[in-house]
């Protein structure tokens, strides 16, 4: 069953162009020139119930804009979106009660008040029955490990603690579709791991459809079964996360340990050298040539050990951003 259906979705923004400096500002004030930016171009995809999908792309690729159109915050310029058969932009009460949009970069809790106050606000806003609210709060607070900071004003908490409070606040109403916009952004390793584990456990329930944007590839590798890569407003990959690492045109890494003399010049002809020292070398080789290269290495060089590694997800995404793979 499809939870999210997106067809030919596009979004164009406008802004007034302004040159740098005071003179530029005055010119813009008197005669501003409107510029248009196509943030999302003709994007189409579907998501099933219970899918946890990573939405990946460089800054300005159109990830957050797409998420905002899916959650009803932005009006699409063109195309159709259906989330649980609702048209998000109509912002029906029943739709809004079933979705959550959690941003790693924006604060939505009451700055001067404790998280507990905001949770109470959520209870009233989402009309959560008292008993259900108590259960959900208990479960989520334990999962997010925020039991000790519930009554501390938000302004006194660390960034990571605040974000974990926000996650709980965004999930108290048990949403069916969760939009997570860079949830581990600017977080230290421990907090990022806690958030990642939290999302992973949430996704394992299979009830919620989660769509997650992140620049942190660990989030995607560990949490998402599927990944959609967007670049310059267009989808350039949509498939299982492990498939992304096996795309055509990708290079695998061969690490060779020698137990005798070897020549860099000759090895260079087999692949691109990544790293090397006296007895070891690491080379990038096209996936379809790996077997032939490994065979040559064994027959022509004093090889002690050889290992072949799948490309790291981070390297794959980098390749896509650089438009080496399209």
């Amino acid at each position, binding site marked *: 069953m499809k939870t999210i259906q997106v067809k030919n979705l596009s979004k164009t*923004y*406008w802004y007034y162009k302004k040159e740098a400096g005071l003179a530029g500002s005055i010119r813009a004030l008197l005669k501003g020139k409107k510029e248009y930016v196509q943030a999302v171009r003709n994007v189409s995809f579907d998501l099933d119930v219970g899918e946890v999908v990573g939405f990946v792309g460089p800054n*300005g690729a159109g990830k*957050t804009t797409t998420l*905002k159109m899916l*959650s*009803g*915050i*932005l*009006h699409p310029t063109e195309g159709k979106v259906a989330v649980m058969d609702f048209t998000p932009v109509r*912002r029906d*009460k*029943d739709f*809004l*009660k079933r*979705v*959550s*949009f959690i*941003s790693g*970069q*924006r604060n*939505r809790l*009451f700055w*001067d*008040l404790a998280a507990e*106050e905001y949770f*109470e*606000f959520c209870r*009233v*806003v*989402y*009309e959560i029955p008292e008993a259900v609210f108590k259960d959900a709060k208990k479960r989520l607070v334990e999962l997010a490990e925020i039991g000790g900071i519930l009554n501390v*004003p938000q302004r006194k908490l660390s960034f990571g603690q605040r974000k974990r409070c926000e996650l709980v606040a965004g999930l108290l109403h048990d949403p069916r579709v969760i939009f997570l*916009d*860079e949830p581990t952004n600017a977080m230290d390793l421990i907090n990022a791991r806690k958030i990642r584990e939290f999302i992973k456990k949430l996704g394992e329930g299979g009830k919620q459809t989660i769509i997650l944007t992140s620049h942190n590839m660990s989030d995607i590798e560990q949490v998402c079964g599927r990944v959609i890569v967007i670049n310059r407003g267009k989808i350039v990959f949509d498939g299982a996360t492990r498939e992304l690492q096996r795309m055509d045109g990708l290079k695998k890494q061969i690490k060779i340990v020698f137990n005798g003399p070897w020549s860099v010049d000759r090895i260079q002809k087999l692949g691109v050298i990544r790293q090397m020292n006296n007895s070891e070398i690491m080379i990038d080789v096209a996936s379809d040539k790996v077997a032939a290269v490994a065979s040559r290495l064994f027959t022509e060089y004093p090889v002690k050990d050889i290992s072949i590694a799948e490309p790291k997800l981070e390297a794959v995404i980098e390749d896509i951003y650089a438009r080496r793979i399209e």
Partner: protein
Amino acid sequence: MPVIIRYARLLALFIKIGLLRQMAYRFNFFMMVIGKVVRIGLLILFFQAIFLKVDRIGGWNYKEVLLLFATFHLVDYIMSITFQRNLAFHLPQRIRMGELDARMILPVNLLFMVSFEDIDMMDFFSFLPSLCFLGYVFYLLDFSFTLTQFFSYLLLLMNAVIFLFGVVLIIATVSFWTTQSYGLSRIFDNLLRICRYPLDIFEGFWKAVFIYLLPLVLVAQLPSQALLNIITPGALFFAFPVTGLFLGGALIFWKFGLKNYMSAST
């Protein structure tokens, strides 16, 4: 849950949160309340000084001017406790910073949310002396008004608040395109101060402006005239449709603005 009860509960929650928020900075809270009470006191002294020299301003005597002044402050306080700061100050900032996003995903009427989410309890405590002042003006007038006049007064007060909500909403909605409407809000704030005085002091063009173009007579003058029983039937018939027009126009403009919301980049 019936809609009206749900929104009443939300409003009660906003009031509680407003109070908690203000009490988080206790010293500032008490100083601000004292400051606002002093401001009203100084303005009363100002009127007393003027009426030592003249008997009437624009045909209004001292007691009538005090009623106008107290009425204006009542409306002004209701506005500043509830929607004014939310719409004129917070909304443009939320549009500019993309903070409207978090409000747009809540299953609550967005206009209600952005208009009332920050209830200014500081102004609420300054509002109580203002109410006492109005009671004192009623006493000066020897309570010489009928129940009908008093209810007309209350009705026109409500009308004034709704009219001002429409105007403030129109100004705030401009932010969807300009991302800032503070300049417009300041102009309107300054214009609004005129309502402390009888608008009869103006003649010709300006009188027409304040009656027909931006009908500030609705704010304090018409309610006061109703209580003093010097309002014309024409003015009564004029007051409600004009407010309806401003509110309707503001709501249409708000919906159009929302469609143009571009959020902010993260």
